[in-house]
């Protein structure tokens, strides 16, 4: 009996091994995509593979800084990355991005004009907008009954132990700067010191600094308030939970754009451009924005979303009004002041 099983198992393994062999022989082009976690509808990747015959190797990162750290080390082979505004600026300056040939991307026409020619890439040479959104406060309406319209609430001792901050240097320091009435891009060391003291003063009453854990902790009722990006709110909304809301404080916040870009050392630039074009197709961009939850810069996809779920386009978390956008600032690369921010961030965490 035992012998019989061994023969069967050996046979199955042999068949499996042979079945996978033809895949090796064909020499298919492999496109290496490096993206944030939970930031694409995976069905679209399969569809792209099926339509083009290109194999997609998909890898993940969690912050702009860790992506940059990995790319800077060298020896990477990524063909497509999804950096944010201020990082694009830094990467262009360091010659880390390849120029994108827009004539290969006819679907670029669907990008709303207000997402073109932005400061971080003034001539649209290196990046194509993917998603955009704001930074704001997520709050549980069962625990927070007052109106949430100011960053001050994150310093309110009433919510001691029930506040989550972002384990992301620029965002968390940016909020303290905004609360003090300064710019999120402040390079004035006195202002940054003030922001630091404000965050150290806040530390005893917060639960902690997190990134990926925030949504789960909010849903679980572990916290009342959380600093986070707009898409997290939409993620919660699509899960059908209605006691968690999102607000962008009156002092203003960060407005951000995540883009598709091609690293300078990419071996498959043409295929990467095909992928960008594929993602910009109105149907695909619509499917993606609905699945991921972040706002699309694609005009035609937005029209489709307006037809299928008009209430979503009305939501501040998905599509902030012009009035909200007026209050927001886009991050810029800090250049040499970055070191000072790094030190400040360590001092805050170590205190």
């Amino acid at each position, binding site marked *: 009996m035992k012998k019989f099983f061994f023969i069967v198992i050996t046979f199955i393994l042999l068949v499996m091994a042979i079945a996978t062999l033809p895949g090796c022989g064909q020499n298919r082009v492999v496109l290496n995509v490096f993206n944030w976690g939970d930031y694409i509808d995976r069905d679209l990747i399969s569809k792209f593979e099926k339509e083009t015959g290109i194999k997609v190797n998909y890898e993940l990162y969690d*912050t702009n*800084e*860790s992506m*940059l*750290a990995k790319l*800077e*080390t*060298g020896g990477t082979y990524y063909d497509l990355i999804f950096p944010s505004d201020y990082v694009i600026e830094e990467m262009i300056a360091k010659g880390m991005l390849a120029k994108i040939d827009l004539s290969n991307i006819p679907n670029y026409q669907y990008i709303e004009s207000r997402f073109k020619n932005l400061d971080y890439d003034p001539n649209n040479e290196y990046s194509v907008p993917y998603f955009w959104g704001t930074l704001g406060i997520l709050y549980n309406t069962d625990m927070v009954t007052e109106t949430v319209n100011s960053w001050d609430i994150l310093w309110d001792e009433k919510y001691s*132990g*029930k506040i989550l901050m972002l*384990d992301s*240097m620029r965002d968390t320091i940016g909020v303290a700067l905004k609360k003090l009435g300064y710019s999120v891009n402040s390079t004035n060391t006195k202002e940054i010191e003030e922001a630091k003291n404000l965050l150290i003063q806040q*530390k005893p009453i*917060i*639960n*902690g*600094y*997190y990134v990926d*854990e925030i949504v789960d*902790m909010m849903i*679980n*009722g*572990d*916290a009342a308030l959380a600093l986070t990006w707009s898409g997290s709110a939409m993620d919660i909304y699509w899960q059908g939970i209605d006691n968690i809301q999102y607000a962008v404080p009156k002092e203003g916040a960060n407005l951000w754009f995540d883009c598709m870009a091609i690293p300078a050392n990419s071996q498959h630039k043409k295929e990467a451009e095909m992928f960008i074009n594929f993602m910009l197709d109105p149907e695909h961009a619509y499917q993606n924005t609905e699945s991921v939850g972040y706002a699309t810069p694609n005009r035609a996809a937005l029209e489709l979303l307006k037809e299928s779920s008009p209430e979503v386009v009305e939501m501040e978390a998905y599509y902030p009004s012009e009035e909200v956008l007026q209050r927001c600032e886009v991050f810029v690369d800090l250049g040499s002041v970055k070191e000072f921010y*790094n030190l400040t*961030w*360590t*001092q805050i*965490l*170590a205190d």
Partner: protein
Amino acid sequence: MKNKSKYLAYPYVIWMAIFIVIPLVLVLYYSFTSGNIHDPGSLKFSVESYGKFFDSLYLNIIIKSFWLAFLSTVLCLLFGYPVAFIISRAKMKHRGLLLLFFLVPIWMNFLLRTYAWMAILSPNGFLNRVLEMIGLPTLAIMPGQKAVVLGMVYNFLPFMVLPIYTVLAKIDKNVLEAAMDLGANGLITFVRVILPQTIPGIVSGVTMVFMPAVSTFVISRLLGGGKELLIGNLIEQQFTVHRDWHFGSALSIILMVMILISMAVMSKVDAGNEQGGAALW
């Protein structure tokens, strides 16, 4: 035959060279240079990174890391020794099963187990819900140092129990009987006969718990809510956030030297008990 068997060690030597010696040399090199890491030509000798370390900011982080690791090691020893003792005194046929119960959790990934503790200890987590249900006040353990120490003790306890168990199991029953016959009571037998013989096990247990505890960054990040910055987190941040390889390397070397010193001290303790039996692991 003797000469041929020597060749069998070559793959291991090559392995050591590629994955241990070369990386260590690189870490040492980066720690003593400054400049742009991606342009090897621009690197210059410098002790700047080591100088940076002598700032109360970083010294406090290292003191805290050693203190928490020390605390976890002591707790592991206090909990681990009795457990090892009980298992080694159990009937032969039960021993395997008892050890298995102790080892099964380590088969699961360490990260998953730490996430599980988050779900148990979080403000609205399993523990607090149970406490609420039976009408007791809730606890605010996580995030905080208590949760970090708990996570360390939980994760590293098997590394304390196993070496001590191995030594205990090797103690000859006749020796214990002889002690009893010569008039020693249970306590004296333990203190004067059993304990001295288990010191090598304790030493390797302490080293194996202390080293991962002092350099951990995952436990402190998850259970400390990112508020408890330890030396491990500081090193990780130099590479993933701040992109300062020189300082990150210098910190790693400093940590390594401090661990080596503590191990040297431990082996001094061990040397005084040569008769205790072979070293473990």
